[in-house]
């Protein structure tokens, strides 16, 4: 079966001729969690942005990004505005690194979870609310009904990220692009969110492209991973092989920088990989 997303030789040039991603090829098979690792500034977020048409103004892309999660395969890099609004949020959803910044501070949680359901799925206000309560329950927010009327600042950081995930899942997307969703959170909260993603994958066949600079998270969550450096994929393969038998020197440095290289299930943050 062909992968639900295949990126072929993606290159991204920002205004001012700044090449931030170069010759990146990457696949996400349906129902799998695929990881992208790499130090900050290596082009991970830019790649994610390209998949949602959210690159900065006047960026230029080359290559293709074939999306097979809709009615027919489309190249995401060539979509027009109207097609984007069908794909975004509905077929591909995104979770950002900082939930505090990615939730609107002045709109209720209820509005932020339901507004795109009402647009995409033409749901009534009441039906959307009912589904929102289910979603909040699913991501384990206590008192979902009360939460709908609350504002983001009334929640803790971990809860906010759960709200953001609930909003991303609202229209039952096929692919979730998660750009370092747990970096800002503490270890226990992070473990809970990783478990949630794994459950969603098993239960609803959600595919996930998970970006992190934390190799422990990569090992705990993903089956397949890509290592980015300076806008290029320098190594890729099954996560375990990649981390236990790195071929590339850069990956070896990343792995060596991790304090306990033998305990991969422990989702502790890796200080050395942050760079």
């Amino acid at each position: 079966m062909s992968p639900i997303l295949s990126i072929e030789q993606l290159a991204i040039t920002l205004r001012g001729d700044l090449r931030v991603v170069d010759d990146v090829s990457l696949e996400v098979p349906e129902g799998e969690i695929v990881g992208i690792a790499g130090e900050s500034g290596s082009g991970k977020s830019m790649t994610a942005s390209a998949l949602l048409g959210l690159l900065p103004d006047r960026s230029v892309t080359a290559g293709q990004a074939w999306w097979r999660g809709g009615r027919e395969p489309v190249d995401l890099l060539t979509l027009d505005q109207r097609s984007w609004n069908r794909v975004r949020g509905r077929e591909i959803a995104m979770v950002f690194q900082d939930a505090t910044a990615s939730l609107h501070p002045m709109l209720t949680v209820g509005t932020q979870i339901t507004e795109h359901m009402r647009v995409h799925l033409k749901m009534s206000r009441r039906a959307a609310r009912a589904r929102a309560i289910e979603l909040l329950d699913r991501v384990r927010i206590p008192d979902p009904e009360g939460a709908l009327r609350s504002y983001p600042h009334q929640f803790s950081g971990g809860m906010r990220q759960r709200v953001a995930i609930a909003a991303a899942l609202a229209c039952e997307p096929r692919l979730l692009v998660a750009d370092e969703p747990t970096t800002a959170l503490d270890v226990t909260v992070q473990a809970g969110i990783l478990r949630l993603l794994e459950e969603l994958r098993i239960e609803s066949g959600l595919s996930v492209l998970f970006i992190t600079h934390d190799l422990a998270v990569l090992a705990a969550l993903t089956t397949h991973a890509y290592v980015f450096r300076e806008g290029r994929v320098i190594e890729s393969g099954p996560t375990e092989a990649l981390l236990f038998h790195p071929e590339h020197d850069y990956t070896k440095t990343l792995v060596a920088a991790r304090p306990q290289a033998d305990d991969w299930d422990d989702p502790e943050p890796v200080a050395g990989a942050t760079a």
Partner: protein
Amino acid sequence: MLGSVLLGFLVRRAIITVVLLVGVTLVSFLLIQAVPGDTMSATLSEQALQDPEIVAAYRERWGLDQPLYVQYLVYMRNLLQGDLGVSQQTGRPVLDDLLTYVPATLELALPAMVLSLVIGVAVGLYAAVKHDRLGDHAVRAGTLVGLSTPPFWLALVVLYVFFFLLGVSPSGGRLSTWIVPPEQVTGSVVLDAALEGRWDVAWDAVQHTALPILVLTVLTVAMLVRFVRSAMLEVLDADYVRAARAKGLPGSRVLTAHVLRAGMVPVITVSGLAFASLLSGTVLVEQIFSWPGVGQYAYRSATALDLPAVLGVSLFVAVVYTAVNLVVDLAYGLIDPRIRLS
């Protein structure tokens, strides 16, 4: 629970406002004291000063034989009863003067403010969305012209064009001279005429407001646009706007529900200041359009050293700024739950 938090917010703002207003009266009272020489000789005319009866009545009324704090209490008592003294120039109570001049100013300031907000926000948002492209540059050029145009010059130009060249506008005043003005109820000639069902008169009054409102609007819009643009630019860059786009919301919904909502917070402050200055400082425009508003009253009182009138106007301006401040704060609370719920 939400209701009681909200109520607490309102009560806090109301208390702050009362404290501010008391402060304002104190300052205005001390200003009277600070006037060199006898406050009496500054407030009473030469002729009145010769009359011992008037002088005695004056001392009695303002408690001038009493210590300072008693004088302040007397001043406050008079103030609360609406007694702001008598204008030397018009010979009428200052309060009555204000009640005729303020509505005239409001009749221009309110529509000008509403128009400016609508136009300023729309154009500013447009410029922000077109960031650094042709539309943005065009708007910048336009606002630059607007900002560097002196108000009186703009007023003269529109008068020249619409009155002298095109003949579609009256030259000034609130009503055509041959019309008997309506009874003063609201103080707005347009509304009062409408209340009497004299629609032709109301229309005539509307035509008289058109040019001054145009001038005030152009000036206010020019100031607002730059501000709105930079506020919106900042919001357009925010993660939550990217997140809204990532949800596949239509662009119009992203702009209205997400961008405008957040970008309005700083805009409200400037709008408040703009409105306060429209209410208190449009002397030149009022002068050119022979508009009997607060600006003209203040100008004439100041040049005639009419102390009670000047103090009355100062008090009015202070009250305007305090009230606008309150409305701005309430609007903040309305827009931003982080302020309302903390």
